[in-house]
């Protein structure tokens, strides 16, 4: 019968209309900003710099190696390394700017960072009325504590911490072994040097 298809379609619309009051599946919209959906753990918006301890700038893990600056696809990272009074490079960023008006949230910087110093934040409400300076994040704006990282990406952060802890342990072990070997060598030399003397 002509028109049957249309009637069937109207029945579907009616079902959806009625269903949207009761079935959650049929009404997926939320009324932002009063209501919010929960962001998944993996969500990524803009990068931030992780610091350990309590001092935001001194505790930065970043060593200003500029790998992320080179790899950043839209070239929105700008790093200048800190130099001490003698002009020797200190492994810290003096300038670390991210132009988030250019950043495309691709996470390449996070992937290429060998020091786990840069991670993705999940804050997306960074709109500002100053479109130039307001969207240019300096290292002070970017530095966030490790506890923040733990809060937004718990699984990732636990992994990173375990890995860093492991590295630290290995380094300590290595240093200890090296120190022991050195002490042993010194002792051997001392003993060798004192070989002529009668043993106590």
């Amino acid at each position: 019968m002509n028109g049957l298809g249309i009637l069937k379609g109207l029945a579907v619309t009616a079902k959806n209309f009625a269903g949207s009051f009761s079935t959650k599946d049929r009404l997926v919209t939320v009324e932002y900003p009063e209501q919010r959906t929960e962001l998944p753990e993996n969500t990524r918006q803009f990068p931030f710099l992780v610091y350990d301890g309590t001092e935001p700038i001194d505790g930065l893990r970043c060593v200003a190696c500029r790998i992320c600056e080179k790899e950043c696809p839209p070239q929105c990272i700008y790093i200048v390394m800190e130099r001490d009074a003698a002009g020797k490079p200190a492994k810290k960023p003096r300038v670390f700017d991210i132009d988030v008006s250019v950043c495309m949230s691709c996470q390449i910087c996070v992937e290429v960072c060998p020091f786990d110093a840069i991670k993705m934040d999940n804050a997306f409400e960074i709109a500002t009325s100053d479109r130039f300076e307001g969207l240019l994040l300096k290292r002070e704006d970017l530095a966030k504590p490790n506890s923040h990282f733990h809060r937004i990406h718990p699984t990732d952060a636990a992994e990173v911490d375990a890995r860093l802890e492991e590295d630290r342990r290995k380094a300590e072990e290595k240093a200890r072994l090296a120190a022991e070997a050195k002490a042993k060598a010194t002792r051997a030399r001392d003993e060798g040097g004192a070989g002529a003397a009668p043993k106590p």
Partner: protein
Amino acid sequence: MRAVHDEFHGDLMEVSMGPHHPSTHGVFRMNVVLDGERIVKLKPVFGYLHRNHEKLGEGMTWLASMPFTDRLDYLCAMTNNWAYALAVERLTGLQPPERAEYIRVVLAELTRLLNHTCLAGFLLQDTGAMGTPLMYAFREREKILDLFEALSGSRMMCNYQRFGGCRVDVSPAWLAAARKVVDAYPRFLDEFEALVTGNEIVMARTQGVGRVAPELAVAAGVTGPMLRACGVDYDIRKVDGYGLYPRFHFRVPLGDHGDTYDRYMIRVLEMRESIGILKQAIDGIPDGPILDPKAKGRGLRPPAGEAYGRIEGPKGEIGFFLVSDGTPNPSRYRVRAPSFVNLTILEDMCLGHTVADAVVILGSIDIVLGEVDR
């Protein structure tokens, strides 16, 4: 075209549709010459979104191009990623592990679902069914985008595939969620078909509109659902057998008439096949690593040579032709975009139809301007 102009039929009229028209799916312009309401000539004009993606790709490292491929066909980031990763894997000889291949199949088929769902919604929008079907389609798409966000961190710009595998592993919880979405999908499709497929207005607007002969489609390099709607059996998943597709059981639906209605129906049928592949892939996913141990992202220098890698994207054959000269940057980076080539026969399809039909025909090609203009 009629040569005589009598008093009832005036002169030909040239109309510029677009570039900012809601029915042109982006910044796309059709220069149309009309005789009354019939189209006698049509020239597509594009490039408004051109950013020379290929030149950009030559200027940056191999890995840095990956997030830019998301922005080609911004509905199908996962398949673009896969095509690029596949081409680089051919170039370097990397071999993704089995688990990564399964994940790729799952994500590519989810992408196919969401692309075809959107297309169905847009097509209905173009025929004049404002709002309702599109909203239903977007509601379902939302669920797949949620899956993508939970996995890759971003809904549309996934940047997920890597050379020789994937970036993050899927969790059992994610697989369960995906399975839930997949299991619920047939119900949505049934409902959508009840809404649309038998609808007399839709049939009147689409059947016999924009017919393409299979010979023309093959000669013009048309791929994807548009080609199969003409009855040509060519699906790169079957022909090339890339990834792990030979392991999965699925059929390739073919159309009879090559008209707009067939192009719509092919997509619905493909979605049903995709659901079958998804079920097999999600159930059969093995444990193991997700990245080739030889793979490296930063500082990748493929050996000198060239490679063409292509996959069956939701819109057709998406291919990457890469030339490496052993440096950290590609020396040539070329994207073979399906929408771009499929547009070749737009004029042939539209001739003799009305302006309103041209809108529907354009909708049924399924173009995304990010990919056409690159």
